[in-house]
Structures are given as C-alpha cells and as structure tokens.
C-alpha cells in the first residue's frame, strides 16, 4: 500500500500540547510541509513566540529560537542577517504579533526584512487564559472584556494584513483560514508562496491564519471552527493583500 498521507519529517515525534481541536496543530503541519516541499526545511531557522505556540521549538524539526513575547521579528532579523541564505520564519499569535510586538512586525515589514511571519490569529490570548486580544471581535466576551468588547472603551480589532500592506517593504501578505479542508489546503499554498517569495529575496512576507481557541472561546472543537467561519471571516476577510499569488 502506498502512503497517501503521513506526518512530515519536518515535525518531530513529540505529541503536541495544544488543547483538543485547537487548530494550532494544523498550522504547524502545513508550515512544516510547505518548508519540506520547497526543500528548505532542514536548514530553516524558526522563531517560536510566547503564546500557546511557545513550545513550537519542540515540534518543528529544524533549528529554533525561543523569542521574548512579541520580539520574534527582531530575533528573526538578527538570524536572517547572519544567515541570509536560510529560510527564517516566525510563528506568532495575535497577542504576540499584533499587540506587544506591533513595533517589531511593522518595522520588519517596512525594512522589507526577508523573513516570513506565520501569524496565528485566534482573536484571544490563549496561553494566559482567554484575555482580550487586539484582534478580539466587537462584543466578544473574554476574561478582560467580561461584558463583551466595547469598541467605544477599548477600540477595534486590528487588521494586520491591511495595515502592513501599506508598507513598501512588504512583499507578500495574505489572510487564510483553517476551518475546513478546502481552506487548510489554500492556507498551505499561501504559506508556500510566502516562503518562496522570501527565498527570492522579495521582501517581508506574512500569512495571517485565522485559527480557533475552543478552550477560551468556551466551545467544542466543532463549534469553534463554525464560530471562526461565521464570525471571524466576516471581520477578517480572506485574501491576498500584497504581492501576486504564485
């Protein structure tokens, strides 16, 4: 019998620590496969964030660095300048990338830093127990917006793709989702595009992946993918915001 699907070698054998049904795992897989399929996986250098993906260095089977919360783009910049021919990527949550790490991602983008940011937007701070993120939807209940996010009081979701696309240094920016098979496949293609653009020295690349957090959304895994589809996609339209799809 021929193998139709098996775990890529670019992922280690360690069981992942994510909650049941959390789509972080899917995103790990497609990132690893994309690297593998482009033949740049073994010599890639990844940067893990502070967030639920904090142990990503245990799962991606390549050189990895653990960055301080939000600083992954700066760390990746340091690595890339030393290893300009390697594929360097960050894997960051929305708290990490769109809140505390805003300056670092904006300036990596405007510098046209030749790295790829995998931006996992689950509209919440997962690891710390479900606080409001800058990406939290209006009205969404979190532990620090107990009556639902009040935009008058604490503002609006940050559209990172739209914002970073205004910067000349950004080369490829796309928003994708992983709530069903079709979208998972499209997401993987987007990630491959971004890595390819990086290796062609086109500039800064970022893929925003809409992701679930069943635990902190208080939903079952199936309800969570449905909620993503029904609520997040309208607020965060999918598409390519910068660069041409390969």
């Amino acid at each position, binding site marked *: 019998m021929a193998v139709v699907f098996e775990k890529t070698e670019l992922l280690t054998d360690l069981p992942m620590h994510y909650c049941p049904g959390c789509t972080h795992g899917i995103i790990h897989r497609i990132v690893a496969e994309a690297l593998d399929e482009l033949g740049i996986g073994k010599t890639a250098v990844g940067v893990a964030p502070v967030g639920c993906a904090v142990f990503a260095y245990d799962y991606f089977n390549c050189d990895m660095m653990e960055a301080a919360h939000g600083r992954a783009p700066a760390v990746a910049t340091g*690595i*890339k300048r030393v290893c300009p021919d390697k594929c360097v990527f960050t894997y960051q949550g929305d708290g990490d990338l769109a809140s505390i790490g805003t300056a670092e991602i904006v300036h990596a983008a405007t510098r046209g830093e030749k790295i790829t940011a995998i931006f996992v937007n689950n509209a919440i701070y997962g690891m710390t127990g479900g606080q409001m993120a800058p990406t939290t939807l209006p009205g969404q209940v979190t532990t620090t917006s107990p009556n639902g996010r009040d935009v008058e009081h604490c503002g609006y979701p940050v559209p990172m793709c739209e914002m970073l696309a205004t910067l000349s240094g950004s080369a490829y920016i796309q928003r994708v989702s992983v709530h069903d098979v079709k979208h998972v496949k499209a997401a993987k293609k987007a990630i491959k595009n971004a890595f390819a653009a990086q290796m062609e020295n086109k500039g800064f690349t970022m893929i925003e992946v809409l992701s679930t957090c069943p635990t902190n959304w208080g939903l079952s895994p199936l309800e969570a993918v449905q909620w993503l589809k029904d609520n997040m996609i309208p607020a965060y339209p999918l598409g390519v915001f910068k660069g041409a799809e390969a």
Partner: protein
Amino acid sequence: MKKLMKGNEAIAEAAVKAGCRYFFGYPITPQNEIPEYMSRRLPEVGGCFLQAESELAAINMVYGAGGAGARVMTSSSSPGISLKQEGISYLAGAEVPCVIVNIMRGGPGLGGIQPAQSDYYQATRGGGHGDYRTCVLAPASVQEAVDLTQLAFDIADRYRNPVMVLGDGMIGQMMEPVDMDKSYRPAVDLADKIWAANGHIPTPGRPRSIINSLFIDPKVLERHCERLDAKYKKIAESECRWQEEMLENAELVVVAYGTTSRVVRSAIRKCRQQGLRVGLLRPITLFPFPTEAIRNTLGTAKCYLAVEMSAGQMVDDVRLAVNGERPVHFYGRMGGMVPTVAEIMDEIRKYATPYQKTPAEIALDSAIDEKFQSVTDAVGHILQRTRKKMKATGSGK
C-alpha cells in the same frame, strides 16, 4: 602607532578588530558615535549594521544574531539599557553570548546626558528579572575601552554569557591616544559554536539547535539555574580584574572605577606627595567584583572610601568585601557632575592623617639633618674663604 581617538569610536573599532560583524543599535546621547562609526565601518568588512526601531528590537536582534553564532554588539545609554533588561535576561537565560555597551548618563528618568555611574546596580545585580549575572567591564581610559571591549567578546564566547562594557559619557566622548595596531587574536580556549541555531544540516554529532530559556517544569528550571549559578561562580573565580596603585602601606584605600578612578588617582598622587598614606584599588571587572583584592588590603588599611558618580551603589560591594572589619566611607556626585581632584583630596584628608614618624625615623632624620648642616657649613666656609681670596686677588670683577 598611537592614534587620537574618541572613546566611542575606539570601542567600535576595537569590536570590529575583535571580529564583531553585527551591530544593532538605536541612537542615544552620549554614545551615538558607536552606531555611527559602525554604520560606516561594518559594510567595509562585510558586516552588517542595522539601526533598530528601538532598544528592545536592538537587543532582540542581538539575541537572534548571537544565537545564530555571530559576534555581535549593541550599545546604548542608561534609559535605553533599562529598555533592554528583559532582553538581557533572555540572553543570559538562553546563554547567548554578546557584548552590550552602556555609556552611562545621569538619571533617573530622562535625567541628563552628562557622565554618571548610577547604573552600577543595574549592571551588576541584573536589572532584569531572575537569577542571572552579566560580566561587567569598566574601562578607565580610551585604551582600556579598546582592550576591554575585545576581552568582552572572548569572555562572552567562553561562558556563553552577555558581557557588558560599562563606561560613561566621559569615557565615550573623550579622545586619548590608543594603539589600534596591536593585533587582536581570540583566546585560544574558545570552542566552536556548535550550539548555534544557524540552519545547519543536523548530524548525529551536531543535532538541531534550540536556543531557549523556557523550562516549564520547576525542577528542570532549578537545575538550569544551578548550572547558570555555577557558571557565574566560575566567572567570579577566573575573570576578576582590578588595578592597584600606591597601596603599599595605604592606611586609606580608595575604591573607584572608570572615570572616577582617574580623578581619584590624581588626587591620591598629590596626597601621597603631602605624606598621606593613601592608595587606589580600581575594580576593572565590576562583576565579578574584586572582593579578595580588597580583603588583601586589610593588612594596612584603617578605613576605606568609595568614590562614585552615584548616590552610592558600588559602596555596597565594598562593604560586603570589607565585611565590617573596617569603616567604609562614601563620597559621591550625581546627575552628571564629575568630582574634581580638589574635592576628592578634601575627602581623603577627612580619613587619612599625615604619616606620623616613628622615634627611630625621627632620630635618623635629625642625624641626616645634622650631617647636612655640617656639610653645608663646611661648603659655606670654603666658599667664604674662596670669595675672600678672590676679592683679595681682584679676580671677582
């Protein structure tokens, strides 16, 4: 051949000579000449200068580049160094070598931009969280800034630890002659950086690299901390440096580092000329602090005086070293004021009395005086006689 160079530029050039090829920084007075020099110089040697968007970004770029195995440096001044504290804690926790230069200025807050030494605690105690230490080197001249910057890279690599070069506005801004031709060679004991996360193809002897400071199991984290602690103890044993000046018979030992130590040295020289038994012990490494060197002066010292451009920070380390066995005094200026030689002489005079001679010495002295008197008397007689003769013979016209 010696060249007249600004401290900041000398530090930058010394780093380049030591193989530093990456510099990430952010402008702040009084250290701007370091990034400016690097922006010109590094491209010439195939290196990379990048002005980061902030000190935070800079220190994290350093973490990335250092983690990838490069010799890398950053520099800033007091407020900027405060912003780097989380990053420095990460560098220490993940054991990434690098060199951090702090050209101190007056604080707290925005403060001022003149020379100060009020970041001593921050540098030596870890301004960041957790149990860690950076090695701290404190140059007192431009030449020493060069030498210590190069040494810093070696120490950083030897122990996989961040090393700080702690100067101040005066060290950074002044020009002095430096010998830049001395060729630097990295210490022979430095190992290859096989731990570096640089995208190498993993082999059994060199598996994939993970640079990390997270250990979620407290037992494992404790073991990690113990390993770090053992390393700091080793640094303390092996890397302690200081300079002694006129400590023979010193009843008052003045302890001062960096800029202050220069002023103190001038003051001490003058005081010695006035018969005061005073000497200087100058810590060159602030961590490790030269505790033993200080204790070695207990034999002659009646008391100690710490002089700093701060409200009194290093004086704690002097007290810990002296351990109550002698009084420890303090003299400090703040906010960018540099003490003058005269001020310090006044301070020294408070604690050092002029040397009192022993009866034997007094006897010897008066014997010499008598002898001298008899000699001059004799000479005087001869001269008088000669003069008389000349007058008599008329040859004095």
